[in-house]
C-alpha cells in the first residue's frame, strides 16, 4: 500500500497532518499541573485526582483552556496523574490480564484458532459422553436398585407394550401416564420413558462390558454371567422374553436416533432370543458413536 501503490506521498501527508499534532510531541514546556498538592497516595482510586508534578518541571500552570498547547499538556498531566493513582493503588500489579489485553506478538496472535479447535473437541466429547451420561444417570434411579429383592412381576399383569398404545390411542408415543398400567403393583415408581430408555441403554452398555470380555466374539452368551444391568432390565421388563417388547418397540417421536435405530435392528429381540453378547455389543459400540462421529469431520474441516 505504500510507495509501490503510489500512495507514499499521500500517507506522509496524512501522517504529517493528522499524526503529528503541534502540541504534544516533545513539548518541552510541559507545565506542572495546577494545585499540586503532594499527596501521592491520598486518593489513589480516583483516576483523575490532581497530580503532583512528576518530573519537576517549573510551574507555569496555565489553565488548560488557554490554548492547544496548554490543553495538550493538561491532557498529558491528567494521564500521568491517572497513571500514578492507579500505580499507587496497586492496580497495575493486581488486575489480571484479560484476553483483550494480551497483545503478545506474532505466533500468539494466532491463538484465537485454538479455542475453536477446543470447542469442537468439547462438542464432540459432550456428544459422545452424553449417551453415557444418560445411561449412567439413569442407573441411580433404576427400580431394581430400590428394591432389595427384585421379584419378577407376574407376566399377566405386564401388558405387552403394543397394548399400551391401544389404550391411549393407536399412535400414542407413550407419555408417562400411559406407562403407568405397566406396573400395576405400584411398589415401584413406574419408570418414565427416560428410565426405560436408560435401562435398555444400561443393559447395552453392560452387555458390551460384561459379555464382550467373557466371550470375545460373543458366541455362547449363556456362559457369561448376566451383568447387573441385564438383571435389572429383565426385572423391569418382567422376564427375559419381555425384554424385546420392553426395549424394542417403544417408538417415541422425540428421540429419533435411538428409537428409530432400535426397532430396525431388533436389539431387543437379539438380546432376548439368542442372549448372545454380539448384537448388544455392536449396538453399544455404534449407538453413541454413530451420531457423534458423523458431524465431527465436517466440523474439523471447517476449522
Amino acid at each position: 500500500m505504500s510507495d509501490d501503490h503510489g500512495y507514499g506521498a499521500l500517507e506522509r501527508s496524512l501522517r504529517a497532518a493528522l499524526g503529528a499534532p503541534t502540541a504534544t510531541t516533545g513539548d518541552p514546556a510541559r507545565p506542572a499541573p495546577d494545585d499540586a498538592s503532594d499527596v501521592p497516595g491520598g486518593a489513589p482510586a480516583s483516576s483523575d485526582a490532581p497530580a503532583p508534578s512528576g518530573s519537576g518541571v517549573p510551574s507555569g500552570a496555565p489553565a488548560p483552556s488557554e490554548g492547544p498547547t496548554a490543553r495538550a499538556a493538561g491532557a498529558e498531566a491528567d494521564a500521568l496523574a491517572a497513571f500514578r493513582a492507579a500505580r499507587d493503588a496497586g492496580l497495575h500489579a493486581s488486575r489480571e490480564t484479560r484476553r483483550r489485553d494480551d497483545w503478545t506478538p506474532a505466533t500468539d496472535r494466532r491463538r484465537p484458532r485454538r479455542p475453536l479447535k477446543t470447542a469442537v473437541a468439547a462438542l464432540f466429547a459432550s456428544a459422545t459422553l452424553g449417551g453415557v451420561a444418560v445411561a449412567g444417570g439413569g442407573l441411580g434411579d433404576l427400580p431394581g436398585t430400590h428394591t432389595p429383592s427384585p421379584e419378577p412381576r407376574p407376566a399377566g399383569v405386564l401388558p405387552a407394550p403394543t397394548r399400551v398404545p391401544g389404550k391411549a390411542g393407536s399412535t400414542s408415543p407413550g407419555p408417562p401416564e400411559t406407562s403407568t398400567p405397566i406396573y400395576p403393583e405400584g411398589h415401584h415408581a413406574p419408570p418414565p420413558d427416560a428410565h426405560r430408555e436408560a435401562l435398555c441403554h444400561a443393559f447395552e452398555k453392560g452387555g458390551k462390558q460384561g459379555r464382550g470380555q467373557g466371550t470375545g466374539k460373543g458366541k455362547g452368551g449363556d456362559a457369561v454371567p448376566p451383568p447387573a444391568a441385564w438383571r435389572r432390565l429383565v426385572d423391569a421388563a418382567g422376564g427375559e422374553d419381555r425384554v424385546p417388547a420392553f426395549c424394542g418397540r417403544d417408538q417415541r417421536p422425540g428421540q429419533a436416533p435411538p428409537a428409530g435405530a432400535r426397532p430396525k435392528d431388533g436389539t431387543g429381540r437379539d438380546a432376548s432370543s439368542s442372549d448372545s453378547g454380539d448384537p448388544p455389543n455392536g449396538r453399544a459400540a455404534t449407538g453413541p458413536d454413530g451420531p457423534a462421529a458423523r458431524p465431527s469431520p465436517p466440523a474439523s474441516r471447517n476449522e
Partner: protein
Amino acid sequence: MGEGTGDAPTAAHGRDRDAELGAAVERARHGDEDAFARAYRIVHPGLLGYLRGIVGEDAEDVASEAWLEIARDLGRFRGDGAGFRGWTATIARHRALDHLRRVRSRPRPTGIEQDVLDLPAQGDAAGEALDALSTRHALALVAGLPRDQAEAVLLRVVVGLDGPTAARVLGKRPGAVRSAAHRGLKRLAKQLKGRGR
C-alpha cells in the same frame, strides 16, 4: 510493519519507535512514571489523529478518556511496542464509539464537510495539494470516506499499526482491513487529483 504503513525510512523509523515504546511500556508497567510519559508522547499523536478522524473536534476529550483507562489498566497489558499501539488504539476506539453513541442524537456542526468543498479550489497539482494538506483538510478528506475505509487508513497510516494489528483493533480480517485501507487511499488520491486539475 512495513507491509503497508509507509515508505521504507518511515517503517524503519517506526520499528525503532516501537522498540523504544516497548521498552518504555515495560518500565511503566513496573511503575516508572517517566517511562509512561515517554510512551504517552510516542503514542498519543497518532491516537489523537485517529480520533480526530472519527469523532472530529471531540477527539481530545475522547483521547483523555482513553488515556485514563490506559493508565488505569496498564498492568493488564501484555505485549510489545506494536502491541501497545494496538491495545491503546482499541481502547481509544471503544471510547470513540461510546462517544458517538452519546452524541448521535444531537446534531453536530459539520464544518468538515464544508471544508471538503473548499479544499482545492486553488490547487493545481495533486502534489501541491498534498504538500498543502493541512490538518483540517486531511480531516475533511478522511471524513468523506466510508467509515471502514477511514478507520483502516487512519489506523495504518496515522497510528502506524501493521495489518494484523489493525485488523484486531477493528475486529475484522486482515485482508478486509488491507483492502479497505487501499480503497480509502485510492479514493483520497483520486479526490486530490480530481480537485487539483
